[in-house]
Each structure stands twice: as structure tokens, then as C-alpha cells.
């Protein structure tokens, strides 16, 4: 693990740990500190956020559809996700005849791991990042590819033709959409000159017009298409409607997770929300200033410079906004057909991505 700079939170822990055993803090303690922060983020932030995401989606979908959404378990149905989790745990874990047992059992964990490992590089607030990798953005995009492997495993090992078809769609779709996704992500990276998500965020410190989306106005020509592209391709990579073909319920029953039951199904269900959230978060980091507020109070030397809760607030506000738009899209739009998905990717999005990248490069050259 390449630690560009030890973040304060993990260095506190590292120092505390070193003091505990009476040694000078060294790289080993830093690494342990980073791991502890990662584990705490996963446990205390991501899981509730994932469950909250499920709740938010169901509540919003209910409102959009003249329904109330969950309102039975706990106040305002807040504990519904938790109750569902308990229900999933109590369900029978079915391994159907003819399934490739090791692959079938391993696939959900691979998907779960890939989706949640992305949170390691997310800068939630100043200093609140588990690992500020030099190649954070690259790492994040690589994890999307890893998730695909898990889904193909699930589809293949299920010994079900619908699952297989879902897995085929997943490969065709997600592998294709990694191209526009990567190209769109390249634009901010190229503009900043770094793949580190912290560096990209801090480049956008200051008021709203410092955000990469419309920095210095003429950048917007390249960045606005790149932003829309990243958002769209992100939807496809997270298998969200209108790109939910791998699990197209009305066509392939449930696609790649048709045969999964109980908590193994939950292991596919929760990562979808984790993926949506982490993609929204990365979108906000790349284009919307990450944890910096729109007034510029968190800029260096200003009132809230380096204040973690202020950063966390804005980070979650932006992420939640993008997350909610994803939900609203899902409950509004019909599903695209598989050949149209491919058409959109290679003949519409890819040229836009290349154009944006070229423009960004040109703007960078011109200064």
C-alpha cells in the first residue's frame, strides 16, 4: 500500500498504538492505523450508509408512486432495512443441484468485497480517508472490473440459463462501459495532474466556481460532457436502471442472482447500493469539489479549513444528491435493450469521452 501522506486520524491511532507498546511510531503502526480506520469506516459508516441507501430508495420510490414506502418497522420505517437483513439471515441458504459449489459460494463475497473496497480511497473529509493512494482513481476503476468477475462467476456457477444470460449481459455491458467511464475520469485527473482523490479534491478548494465542473468557465466545455458521461457510465457500471440489464427482472427473472437466496442474495443486494454510493461519491470528488463547500469556507486559511465534520457534511450532501438522482431515474425510466446499450456506449458515449479528453488535454497545454 502506497501511503502518500499519513492522514491525521490513522496517525493518531498509530501514535496511540506505539505508545501502548512503548515504541516509536513507524510505518508498521501507520499501516495498522490505516487498517483500523478502514475497518471503522466500513463498519460504522458504510454499512449504515448502505442500509440507509436502501431505506432512502424505498421511501423515495414510494413517494414517487403514490405509496408510503416502509413505515411499519421503527419510527418512519427506519429499521426496515435492518429487519430485512435479519430476515435474509434467517432464510434457508439453497445450493441447487448442479451448481458449481465453490464458485457459487465465493461469488457473492467477491462482489461484496469489490464494492466495499472502493470506500477505502474515498476522502470523506479532510484527513478522514483510509488510504490516500497515489493511484486512488485507478484503484477505484479497477474494483469495478473485479466486481464483474464475481458476477460472471455467479452467473456461470448457478447452472441456470437465465443466470448465464445475465452474466453475459454483465460482461458485455460493464466491460464496455469501463471505457467511457475511464475516459471521463481521465479528464479531471488530467486537469489536476494526479490520480489521488485527495489531491483532486484539494485542487477544487474554494468557492463554487473552483469546482472542476466549470472551473474558469471554458473548462466547462470539456468537463460538463465528461461529468454527464461519468454519471451515465457510472449508472451502467453499477447496473442501475435504465441499464439494469444483467438483472432485468421482467426478462431474465433476476439475471445473475436468480438462484441465490438468503444472505447470499443480500451479498449481491447491498453491494449495489454501496456501488451507487461510491460512484456518487467519486463523481462528487471528481467534478463537484468533494468535501469542499460551495461558499469556500473550507479553503486553506478560511474558517473551516481542515474541519472534518464540515467536510463530512458537504461530502454527504453532494453524494446523497447524486444518489437521489440515480434513484429518481430508476423509478422513471424504462429499461434499454441490450443492443441499444452497446450502441449508446460505442457510438455515442465513447466519442464524447474522447472529445472531452482531447479538449482537456488541449486546455491543459494552453494553460
Amino acid at each position, binding site marked *: 500500500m502506497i501511503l502518500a501522506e499519513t492522514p491525521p486520524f490513522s496517525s493518531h491511532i498509530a501514535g496511540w498504538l506505539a505508545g501502548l507498546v512503548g515504541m516509536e511510531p513507524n510505518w508498521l503502526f501507520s499501516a495498522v492505523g490505516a487498517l483500523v480506520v478502514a475497518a471503522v469506516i466500513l463498519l460504522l459508516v458504510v454499512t449504515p450508509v448502505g442500509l440507509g441507501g436502501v431505506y432512502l430508495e424505498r421511501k423515495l420510490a414510494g413517494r*414517487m408512486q*403514490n405509496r408510503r414506502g416502509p413505515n411499519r418497522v421503527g419510527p418512519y420505517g427506519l429499521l426496515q432495512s435492518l429487519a430485512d437483513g435479519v430476515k435474509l439471515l434467517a432464510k434457508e441458504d439453497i445450493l441447487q443441484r448442479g451448481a458449481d459449489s465453490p464458485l457459487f459460494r465465493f461469488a457473492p463475497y467477491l462482489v461484496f468485497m469489490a464494492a466495499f473496497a472502493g470506500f477505502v480511497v474515498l476522502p470523506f473529509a479532510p484527513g478522514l480517508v483510509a488510504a490516500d493512494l497515489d493511484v486512488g482513481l485507478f484503484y477505484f476503476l479497477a474494483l469495478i472490473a473485479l466486481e464483474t468477475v464475481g458476477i460472471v462467476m455467479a452467473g456461470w456457477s448457478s447452472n441456470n440459463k437465465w443466470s448465464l*444470460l445475465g452474466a453475459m449481459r454483465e460482461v458485455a455491458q460493464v466491460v464496455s462501459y469501463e471505457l467511457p467511464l475511464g475516459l471521463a475520469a481521465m479528464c479531471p485527473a488530467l486537469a489536476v495532474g494526479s490520480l489521488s482523490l485527495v489531491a483532486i479534491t484539494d485542487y477544487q478548494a474554494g468557492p463554487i466556481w473552483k469546482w472542476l465542473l466549470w472551473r474558469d468557465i471554458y473548462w466547462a466545455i470539456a468537463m460538463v460532457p465528461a461529468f454527464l458521461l461519468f454519471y451515465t457510465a457510472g449508472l451502467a457500471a453499477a447496473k442501475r436502471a435504465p441499464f439494469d440489464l444483467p438483472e432485468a427482472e*421482467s*426478462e*431474465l427473472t433476476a439475471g445473475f442472482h436468480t438462484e441465490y437466496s438468503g444472505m447470499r442474495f443480500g451479498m449481491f443486494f447491498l453491494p449495489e447500493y454501496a456501488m451507487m454510493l461510491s460512484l456518487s461519491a467519486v463523481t462528487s470528488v471528481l467534478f463537484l469539489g468533494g468535501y469542499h463547500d460551495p461558499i469556500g469556507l473550507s479553503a486553506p486559511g478560511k474558517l473551516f479549513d481542515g474541519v472534518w465534520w464540515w467536510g463530512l457534511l458537504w461530502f454527504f450532501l453532494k453524494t446523497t444528491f447524486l444518489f437521489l438522482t440515480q434513484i429518481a431515474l430508476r423509478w422513471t*425510466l424504462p429499461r434499454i435493450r*441490450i443492443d441499444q446499450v452497446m450502441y449508446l456506449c460505442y457510438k455515442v458515449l465513447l466519442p464524447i469521452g474522447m472529445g472531452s479528453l482531447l479538449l482537456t488535454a488541449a486546455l491543459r497545454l494552453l494553460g
Partner: protein
Amino acid sequence: MTVIQGVKLDESERAAPALPRDILTEELVFNMGPQHPSTHGVLRVVLRTDGEVVHDCHPLVGNLHRCCEKILENLTYVQGLPYVDRMDYLGALNMEMGLVLSVEKAAAVEVPKRAQYLRVIMCEINRVISHLFAAGQFGLDMGAFTPFLYMFREREEALLLLNQVTGGRLLYHYIRYGGVTRDVTDDWLKRCLAWCDRVAAHMDEYNNLLTYNHIFLNRTCGVAIIDKSTALRYAATGPILRAAGVARDLRKDIPYSSYEDFDFKVPVGPHDKGVVGDSWNRHRQRLLEIEESLKIIRQAVAKLPSGDVSNPKISRGWKAPEGEAYVASEAPRGEISCYFVSDGGKAPYRARMRGPSFQNISLLGETSRGLLIGDLIALMGSIDITLGECDR
């Protein structure tokens, strides 16, 4: 120009793509249904596909066969009638109408004018909610969940209206030999008109959200075309036939139950998008028919004559005299007809029902060749089948 099933399509008509045949691989045999979410009941379809491309599609029906016609032969006239409701559970009143009309014709039973008008009102309400259900289901098949629930909002109100008069929400047992069971109140008629206005006001909402949605247009225009000759060859009826460009509507062609008193149009494809007989046109056809049905309801409520709602000669133990008759009527899914024979006994000698879904399902085999699996769902959803009425 792409030629699909003998119909020439411009590229602008968003033809289903002709995939190259040089990458054929091993065929997959799928068993779609009877538990598949998009087969609308217990239809089983055996598919042979090359990846996503359907080579052959073989619908297998009969999973919901309940011997309805045989049951009719063993029950008295009054007892037998509710069984007809259960054939097409989404258009129950229209199904009752099918049997009752032919029995009345064979026995020469007179139906009071008010009862005829009430039958028309109820049948048209049933047609509207059946079409709303079909259109919503079609959206659901295409992956749009929300329009379905919007349409259910109006359906729910209509179910309340029907419930208040007939006592049932899904299966009504309202139309009887010689009339109907209960009269309506003036207050009910007012609420019925208010409901018509609400549905009419929400048509734009459905159209904006679903019918003219860009993705939806791309998914359905030019997809799974059932042209005029195919539809006629398979004896398809109802919205499918009209969307294919044939202006056949029994309410207009052979009016029954005073339909000749009302002024309404028969919408015929092609409509403003797509090509004649494609999935989009079938969907649009239903929405247009809803508007015409609302017109009929308004007129029938306005012109509702006073008088009895049932023929006093029909008693509990009524038996049809010897005779036979064949009457066809227009149900939401197509033509319902009944060939009724009586030997003067206390039960019908034979009551052979013809439901439109069986003929319409038969179209799947020929029309689905070369479609993608996603398009096959569009075809099945836009045909709108009820297995209960197909299998009986």
C-alpha cells in the same frame, strides 16, 4: 431498408436490428414460464435462442384449464354464471356479457333499456381498467415500474365504484339473464362521471411518463410487428387487430346492448409513431380505446333511461327453452363469443366460449422469430393475454 416479416422499414422507423448470421453458436433452449414474471400468468413458452436472439418460440397453454364449459353444463343457469367471470378475471363483466347475450338471444329474453345501458356502463368501466392494467403491465415489462402504479391509482377508484354497485372487486356476477342485479344511485352516477374526468385528465401523465418516453419508443417502435395479414390469418381480434390497421370492433359492426345509441370512434393503427402493428401501436391503441370508452360511459350516464333493471319473468329456477344461438361481443382483449345450445333442461346443453387470448397467444410463434429476448417481452406484454380465458 430492412425487411422484417414482409414489412419494409426505414432506418428511421427504429427497426429491430438484423444481427449478423455469421456468428451463430450453439442453440440454447429456454423454458420461459410458467413461473416467469413476464408471462402474465401460467403461460409456458419454450424458446430456442442463439444467445439473445430468439430462433423459435413455442407457447404451451393449458396450465389454467378449469373445465369451465363442462361446469356450465352441470349447473343451473343462475349457478353457472359466476364461473364465466373467472375465465377472464381482468374483464369479468365483458365475459358475463358474452354468455348472457347468447342465452338471451336463444331464449328470446327481453332486456329493459335501463339494464342495457347499465351493462354498457359497467362493461366500459371494466374495459378501461383492463386496458389500464394492460398498459401498466406493459410498462412493467419494459422496466418502467412507476406508470404501473399510477394506472393502478385510477383502477383502484374504479374497483371501488364497481364494488359499490356489484359487491365485488374483481369478479362481479352483476350481469344476469334478462338484466342486471342492482340499480345504481344518482350519487354513484355523479361519482362515475367524476372518475371519468380524472382518468381523462391523467391520460397526459401516462403518455408523458411512458408512451412518448424516448427509451420506451426505442424499445417498442418497429418491434414485433403483427401486420394486417398475419393478424387476420391467426384470427387475432381486439386491440391487436385494430393496431394492425383493421377497423373491426363488434360494438360498431354488430351492435349489441344498445351500443348503437352511442357516438364513439374506433381508433385504428398506425398511430403517430412507429409502424402499423408494432408493439408501440398496440400499446397506444389501448390508451386511445380508453378515451373512447370514457366517451361511451359519459353518454350512457347522460342518457340513462328510467325503468326496471331486470326482466321480471326471469326467476331463480329459470330455464332456457330449447334453442341455440351464437353471439359475439367485444371484450377488452378481443372478441368473446359464445355458442349456446339448450335442450330445455335446467342446465345449458352446451355453452362453448371463444376467448381471444388463445388466438392471440398463437401469434407468438410466428412473430417472435429473430427478436431479442427483450423484444419478445415487448411482444408478449403488448399482446396482453389472460391465461384464465385462454385455457378456460
